[in-house]
């Protein structure tokens, strides 16, 4: 199955065509550099994204805690992750990079605080 991928590694934005089946890549064309090859191959076989959103803070309705996944999660699991995060609540105080949800949906990524709240810093 052929797939066209716009490379996001640099502003050049090459249109790369990747051919293959499932996680097996058979050909990559249209890339201008090795980084583009690596990006397009990974994007074809297993696209991942950093997920960022917010969670409620315990006892607060007027403000939210920004959170992120500690590492990229599979693209197809973004909405499922959002469902889990929606029902979560962060304690106050919370420090930047505290884990809010561990190993979300078995992806190996934690949902961590992007900022501190209720601490001195």
């Amino acid at each position, binding site marked *: 199955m052929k797939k066209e991928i716009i490379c*996001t590694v640099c*502003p050049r*934005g090459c249109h790369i065509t990747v051919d293959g089946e499932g996680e097996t890549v058979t050909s990559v064309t249209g890339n201008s550099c090795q980084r583009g090859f690596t990006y397009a191959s990974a994007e074809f076989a297993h696209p991942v994204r950093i997920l*960022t959103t917010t969670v409620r803070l315990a006892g607060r309705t007027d403000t*939210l805690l*920004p959170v992120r996944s500690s590492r990229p999660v599979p693209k197809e699991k973004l909405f499922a992750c959002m469902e889990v995060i929606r029902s979560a609540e962060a304690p106050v105080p919370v420090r*930047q990079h505290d884990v809010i949800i561990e190993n979300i949906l078995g992806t190996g990524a934690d949902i961590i605080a*992007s900022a501190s709240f209720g601490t001195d810093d």
Partner: protein
Amino acid sequence: MYELSCDVAVIGGGPAGLAAAISARENGAENVLIIERDNALGGILQQCIHPGFGLTRFHEELTGPEYFGRFVARAKELGVRSMLSSMVLEVNPEAKQILATSSEYGLTRVQAGSIVLSMGCREKTRASIMVPGTRPAGLYTAGAAQRLVNRQNIMVGKRIVILGSGDIGMIMARRMTLEGAKVVMVVELMDYLAGLTRNRVQCLDDFGIPLKLSHTITRIEGDRRVTGVYVAPVDENKKPIAEKEEFVACDTVLFSVGLMPENELTRKGGIEINRITNGPCVDQHMQTSAPAVFACGNVVHVNDLVDNVSRESEKAGRAAALYALGKLPKANRTVTCMTGNNVRYLCPQCIHVTDEAETAEIYFRVLAPQEHVRLRACCGGKVVYEHAEFRVNPGEMNHVTVKTADLTGEELTVEVIKED
């Protein structure tokens, strides 16, 4: 009236102000004060919860709060003072005084050795582009919606049309989709994307959100709440083609139609403003037409990457510190920066050649997308910089680097020329 004094006063505690304040401290200014109207530092990055910041500067992908968090920590470490919930009313460049009103201290006068302007920018609105139609609820600028959704826990709508393919608009398209809204389409007047390609891929394509290039909203419908918009393709003169107009039902319209440097204080202070950037004219030290006043970040020209803002602001902070200490090198002569082929504006607008050998970076935006080009800078009949670029795009800032010692002429021309 409450009175304060400092070596360097920084107006605005966003990424530009933070970087300038840190750099001022690191370059010898003892007493650095940030005046910020919000109740916290960080500026717009407080609501930019998405990743993509710091790729150039830190070689990792940070969210907005993580990016500015590093600067806040450093500023604290260096003993930079900040006056929050304080609105500056007036800047007097000659007296080096700032008049502000503060929730805590009331009317306050700050006597500074030098001043850094880092007030950032604000969004253009529906009024700026004059979209016809009714005036119902449900019309927001993309950034206002971003603040409501990300910081105040207020969801702005369920079925959304976004006008303008700027980065904030695309980022909000993804954000609203993740929060369960339906983003019907992103409508862009130009025949190219206004924002970064990366955002098109990760914010629109990932979620199957259509991008309508060369289209515009011709009118807005709705009595109490938006019920929909009419969308039409435009001809080569950007005029809507009326017979191809279509109704698109929605309850919310987000405008992502550009940013305007916020320069009321600058204008009132009599500082020279550039007609194209709408920001103060500056030299390579980010010094404005008023010698004691420096400026940096989006108040000078709208940037697409915060990494560039931090870099530029460090120059402003350093120069402001040196000025306050009486150590900023005197200019021997001035070289004016001139726009050449396919260059919309240059920043800085002039270079002051001093006794010091310096390297100056000149940032610019092109007028139109172009491929296989060379970026070239000429001065006194000599080429002082040349670099090949595969593609240039109005949405992505470019720069040239020149050695001030090479600038023998009175004018420095920067141009983008087609590779033969």
